[in-house]
């Protein structure tokens, strides 16, 4: 229907107004913090709503250096990149096994992975800390990477299995008859085919791992190993943290994933709403 036809026009306007209101409520707090990140403390005391006189980057520079956000940023990259790479590679292999190769006993094994999809981090965090401590893996990047990869793999295998189930088995057969092994057919034929699902998985896992709080808080008690979200939480409590610096720090923490999400929002929403409860 034509939404601007006289008959529908008033309802269309109403729809835009309500939608605009909802969007404003979602965005307003975030926009205010963006404005604040560019202000001097003096400007902020005059009014929290006014625009900054100039878009200075002083707050970011100070948060980056004195607030140690450069360290947290580096730590986040060190943790997130391997977690996502390991999870995605192992999930693609696992999903391939469950979706196409189907070894005997695959149903029972798959149920094992489903436990990890339904159960949250909280179920594992207590022994995880005390176990890793005995192995000297507290305050250790691998101690942050492997547990996060573990639960990501549960979801990833679940996700990639569905993708491979949609692939006709004849395709693998054809590839193998052409002389390719199961590995080569996975790499050359199947992965390009399920690339959209792989991409969604990468985006989902990146955002989830980047934002993870409880696990990092517990497994990295030393400032030296904290990732951005945990670093921000402790920075807020320090004496040097003025509101303008907190705002700049918040932006450093949030911006990379906001950009990633904006680019891949369709994939992200599809992934998150297809039964994903890890996060």
């Amino acid at each position, binding site marked *: *229907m034509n939404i601007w036809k006289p008959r529908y026009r008033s*309802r269309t306007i109403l*729809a835009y107004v*309500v*939608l605009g209101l*909802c*969007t404003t409520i979602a*965005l307003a*707090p*975030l926009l*205010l913090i963006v404005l*604040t990140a560019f202000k001097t403390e003096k400007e*902020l005391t005059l009014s*929290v709503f006014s625009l900054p006189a100039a878009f200075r980057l002083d707050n970011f520079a100070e948060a980056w250096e004195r607030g140690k956000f450069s360290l947290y940023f580096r730590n986040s990259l060190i943790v997130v990149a391997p977690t996502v790479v390991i999870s995605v590679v*192992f*999930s693609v292999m*696992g999903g391939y*096994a469950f979706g*196409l*190769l*189907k070894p*005997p006993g695959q149903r029972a094994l798959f149920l094992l992975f489903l436990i990890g999809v*339904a*159960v*949250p981090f*909280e*179920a*594992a*965090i*207590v*022994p995880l*800390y005390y*176990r890793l401590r005995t192995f000297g893996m507290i305050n250790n990047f691998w101690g942050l990477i*492997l547990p996060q*990869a*573990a639960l990501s*793999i549960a979801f990833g295998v679940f996700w990639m299995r569905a993708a491979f189930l949609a692939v006709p*088995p004849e395709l*693998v057969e054809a590839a*193998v*008859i052409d*002389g390719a*092994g*199961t590995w080569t057919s996975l790499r050359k034929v199947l992965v390009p085919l399920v690339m959209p699902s792989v991409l969604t998985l990468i985006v989902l896992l990146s955002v989830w791992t980047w*934002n993870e*709080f409880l696990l990092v*808080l517990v497994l990295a008690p030393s400032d030296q190993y904290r990732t951005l*979200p945990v670093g*921000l*939480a402790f920075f*807020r409590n320090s004496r040097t943290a003025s509101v303008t610096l907190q*705002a700049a720090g918040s932006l450093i*923490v*949030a911006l990379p994933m*906001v950009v990633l*999400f*904006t680019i891949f*929002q369709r994939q992200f929403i599809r992934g998150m*709403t297809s039964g994903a*409860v890890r996060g």
Partner: protein
Amino acid sequence: MAREIEQSRPIPVAQPAHRARGQRRLRAGLPWLHWSTGYFYLLPALIVYGVFALLPMADTLRASFTQWDGLNPPVYVGLDNYASMLQDPAFLTALAHNLYFIIFSSVLPILIALVVTSLLTRRRLPGMTFFQTALFLPQIIPITVVGVVWTWILNPAFGPVAEILRAFGLSSRPWLGDFDLARPVIGLIVTWMTYGLCLVLFLAGVQRIDTDLFDAAEIDGANEFRQFMVVTLPGIRNELGVALVITMIEALRLFGLIFVTTQGGPGKETYVIAFQLYQVAFIETQVGYGAAIAVVLTLLIVGLSSSVLWLHRRVMGDW
């Protein structure tokens, strides 16, 4: 490793007939494939998942039957931890608060989203992608950023809310430090986090409804409200179920927001289970009791979400 797998496997034609017969019981999904091939692909995932997720989960259960300070050997105490949980006012308070927050994370946002959806039904509005992205943003923002932002916004001395109130000659209250207000205010922050998710879900669901259904209802004389009840609502039943489960889990797992904003206070007004779990297991190092709390929290999450899905299937028909 992968290279070896590839080379060690005979191609289908070359496989001797008697071997294939002998292995009929162990069959892979692809008939010409050696039955064990799939395991090699599963192995890496299984090892990482098993060692760093599945084993710790089993350990949680085991530790929950012990008294343990994290240093000396644990002492088996049977169900004592669970029994004391039932008499622990801190736990019962936390549990009640988590259930209270479900109203703010699920009920309120779903109602808001349904009202908005009813206004938008059948209208493919230009600019939808922008609205979707913006509405979903509170879900993408790290929880500590949400906490920092709202603590500032609600700051009674110099926050934006206080400034607005001042403009009207009103004085601000210490929202997050007020015994009467802290809990509903935290609740509303949670609503802010989840209503956009619900709305995005429902709007996506409406897009998939066959427009003929609306036309048919209109011809039958159904007004807009009736159309919403008989066409839209059944049409987005899957999205309703998903929204309910995701947002309920969010209320039950509430931790980062509390950690940053109120630390469970004032008093125990915003105390929640995950926060108690953190305090008991890692600050007070009552590891056994902490593990028992983790088990109950997990059962609560898995139990509530699966019963919602079960009920949903019963009430709404097949997915």
